[in-house]
């Protein structure tokens, strides 16, 4: 019998509404919102495809707007398979990872066709390299053992021997790509499309692109003109990536395989995080109390290990293969089926909790810049049509914002915080004054290539993600934030949610309308202003 999946819900609170859950970094908090506030809950997880392997096989045999994959494979050809990296899904999914299932199918077909020259490349772009253990977990033991390390590797966007300049788009955007991928007879891209921002033409030119290419769309001007990142038709970022993608598609045979997941983000006993508070059972309430008390008392390292050990019980909801644009249209339909929640009207205040994990701190700590990226970059922009909050409104986030950095993963973030933000928090000023220096810094480059560090320019991109929110909002308040850190970030702190709402009254008046984005699990409010 099919599992029922209730759609999302916009709940208007009254005096009887229980406190609402906020993610709060490496812990959680319950906050009582004023009566009349709205809570936007995600839809419940859609039922997953019963036999993912079969669905994958069907997708590559009957692709969209392309010949079947089997027909593209031949002996003597050069085949490259690019794979989305560890930045998604979030949290990492329980094994087998969807990418493993897709890879196994593609590799089986390649073997049947007698293709010998096969290389698997993690499309990490300017993200950190994935570790051996992370790659093994993602691709599965069989694939790993067959290809690691000579034929399965991370992309190195700073390796002059593995980068090729392809040309410029009609808008003058330089396209530089992984040489192995570009010189292949066929490039298969294996994606997980967690949110609407991902996938499509953003996969190849970004995932296998270099700083020289990315700077054409990962910049303040473009991101200010992307409203929102989750609405590709209205995103200058996606327009640019699409121009690059089409430019490449004219020169390179790209076979895209995109997958979508439901939003079953948390396994038991953390499944209370996905439930609506008014439906919490006694067990859920006890679990909440136990988990929050336990996390509070744990040493930092143990807490991070525990949290980053959570694996989401995601299920495959769709798999489509073929020509990139045709595939992505189907993918977005699938995503919207799971994610979209209709919301009428914007509010004066938007609230949201920032969780312990984001795309760039898997197996790491979420540093203050990543907190800004999550809150102002991703959650503020998690909309179609219009933001949940009105122009000039206030965004209230919960996160303790400790000054904590992973020096291996985020070395340039430390300097960005200490040096760049001490000088200015204005994205345009920062971009003009510091970006090139960080992007070309030899030490960062060395660490990106040989250690597990994000590229030197990466913290800039995180800051740029937040540029639209900074430009749009009247105020940003962090509840429970470290005062010194939040001041450095250019925002304000409040001790309690009530204080934050009181502080927000300076900007939005004394009777503000409030909407809480109950996220994660991820979903997508479609807001009618």
């Amino acid at each position, binding site marked *: 019998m099919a599992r029922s999946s209730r759609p999302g819900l916009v709940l208007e609170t009254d005096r009887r509404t229980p406190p609402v859950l906020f993610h709060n970094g490496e812990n959680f908090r319950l906050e009582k919102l004023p009566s009349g506030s709205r809570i936007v809950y995600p839809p419940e997880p859609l039922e997953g495809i019963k036999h993912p392997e079969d669905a994958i096989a069907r997708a590559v045999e009957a692709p969209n707007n392309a010949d079947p994959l089997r027909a593209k494979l031949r002996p003597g050809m050069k085949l490259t398979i690019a794979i989305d990296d560890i930045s998604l899904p979030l949290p990492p999914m329980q094994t087998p990872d969807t990418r493993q299932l897709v890879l196994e199918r593609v590799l089986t077909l390649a073997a049947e066709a007698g293709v010998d020259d096969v290389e698997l490349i993690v499309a990490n772009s300017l993200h950190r390299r994935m570790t051996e253990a992370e790659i093994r977990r993602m691709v599965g033991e069989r694939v790993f053992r067959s290809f690691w390390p000579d034929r399965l590797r991370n992309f190195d966007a700073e390796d002059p021997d593995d980068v090729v300049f392809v040309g410029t788009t009609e808008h003058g955007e330089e396209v530089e790509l992984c040489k192995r991928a570009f010189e292949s007879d066929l490039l298969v891209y294996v994606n997980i499309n967690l949110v609407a921002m991902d996938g499509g033409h953003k996969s190849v030119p970004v995932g296998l692109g270099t700083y020289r290419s990315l700077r054409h769309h990962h910049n303040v001007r473009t991101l200010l003109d992307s409203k929102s990142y989750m609405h590709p038709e209205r995103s200058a970022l996606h327009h640019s990536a699409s121009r690059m993608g089409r430019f490449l598609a004219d020169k390179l045979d790209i076979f895209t395989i995109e997958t979508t997941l439901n939003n079953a983000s948390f396994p038991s006993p953390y499944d209370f995080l996905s439930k609506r508070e008014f439906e919490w059972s006694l067990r859920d309430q006890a679990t909440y109390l136990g988990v929050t008390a336990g996390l509070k008392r744990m040493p930092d390292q143990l807490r991070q290990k525990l949290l980053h050990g959570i694996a989401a019980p995601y299920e495959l909801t769709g798999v489509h293969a073929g020509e990139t644009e045709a595939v992505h249209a189907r993918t977005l339909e699938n995503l919207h089926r799971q994610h979209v929640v209709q919301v009428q009207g914007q509010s004066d205040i938007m609230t949201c909790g920032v969780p312990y994990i984001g795309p760039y701190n898997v197996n790491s700590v979420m540093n203050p810049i990543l907190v800004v990226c999550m809150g102002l970059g991703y959650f503020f922009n998690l909309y179609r049509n219009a933001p949940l909050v009105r122009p000039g409104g206030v965004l209230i986030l919960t996160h303790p914002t400790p000054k904590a950095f992973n020096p291996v993963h985020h070395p340039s973030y430390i*300097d960005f915080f200490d040096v760049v933000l001490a000088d200015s928090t204005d994205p345009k000023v920062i971009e003009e004054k510091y970006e090139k220096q960080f992007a070309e810094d030899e*030490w960062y480059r060395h660490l990106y290539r040989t250690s597990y560090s994000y590229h030197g320019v990466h913290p800039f991109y995180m800051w740029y993600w937040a540029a639209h929110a900074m430009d749009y909002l009247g105020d940003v308040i962090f509840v429970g934030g470290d005062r010194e850190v939040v001041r450095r970030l250019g925002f304000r702190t409040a001790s309690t949610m009530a204080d934050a709402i009181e502080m927000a009254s300076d900007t939005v008046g004394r009777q503000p309308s409030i909407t809480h984005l109950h996220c994660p699990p991820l979903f997508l409010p479609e807001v009618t202003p």
Partner: protein
Amino acid sequence: MIAIEFSRSVPRYAASKLAGRTTPGLLPFVAPLRVGHYDDPELPGEGWVRVAPALSGICGSDLAMIAGDASFYFSPIISMPFVPGHEVVGRLDDGTRVVIEPVLACTARGIEPVCAACARGDVGLCVRTAHGIIAPALQTGFCEDTGGGWGTVLVAHESQIHRVPDAVPDEAAVLIEPLACAVHAVLRANVAPDELVVVSGAGTMGLLTIVALKHLTNAGRIIAVAKHGRQQREAIRLGADDVVTPDTATRAVRLATGAHLHTAEMGDPWLGGGADVTFECSGNAGALDTCLRITRGRGRVVLVGLPGAAKIDLAPVWHRELDVLGAYTYGTEANGQRTFDIAIGLAQRVDLSPLVSAKYPLTRYAEAIDHAMDAGRLDSVKVVFDLGAK
């Protein structure tokens, strides 16, 4: 005269040493300091004159002495009891406003012929500071016979006297002596055009080093390491291009120079590459250790602040072939100019007065010393005694 006298007292020295580490607020009370009426110092010989100090600074070396942290290295060239104070602006009997160049070298000591260093004009390197017609002392302010700036009268040899231009107020003139030290340090380092320079510590010496760098060299970027807000603001005002805090200094210099940062298994990180020249102005051993780690191979590390006995890892000096340069006081520089003359010229071009943060009468010496001990945290730079105040 009214003066503060520093005397020899083993129990008080021990108490100072203890208080300096545990309860610095008690230091002025337990240190071997006494304010009182004393006989005026006598003129030791020909060429000596009386000076009535108007303002006299409290220097880091004075504080080290009071806290029992000064190196015993200096014991043969000081004579107790003495009246401290070597940063002095005052007036001669005829009313002429002067500053004192406090080094007590051969000429002041009546030694003929003068030593080779004095003959060259390098009075700071005089080898006869324990000889001659006055008691041993490297400077006024450490000499039993001359008095010092923390008294209402001192005596000085005419070779030590420099007239103060009218355009330089007392609050700036009292800083000419430390400015001369900074000038000498900067000229010692021979900073080449566009070299990246780090000034570690932004107390009086650090800030004045920035002044000297800005006006006497064509240094490239000047990065000041400053802990406190006032120091940070003054560093920028006086010419630093960037100000960083001590905890971010290593990474900031790395970023500025494009160096590589190496993380040691124990101890602080160090840079492969780094600053061309580093001036350590705080006298703090930890800061010196950082300077050695952030200066490039064959770069120069200049000791401007008075270092004490300390345990420092010298591996970087050996490994990166660093030139560690001492910079004590002043004399005659390579261009033939006396350092003090250069400093007086600079004091006319740069507004130094804001650096004097507080003035105290001698009778409130305990408060003054307590303030000076904690100047940075109290958003102050230079604390001085106002000898004219009641």
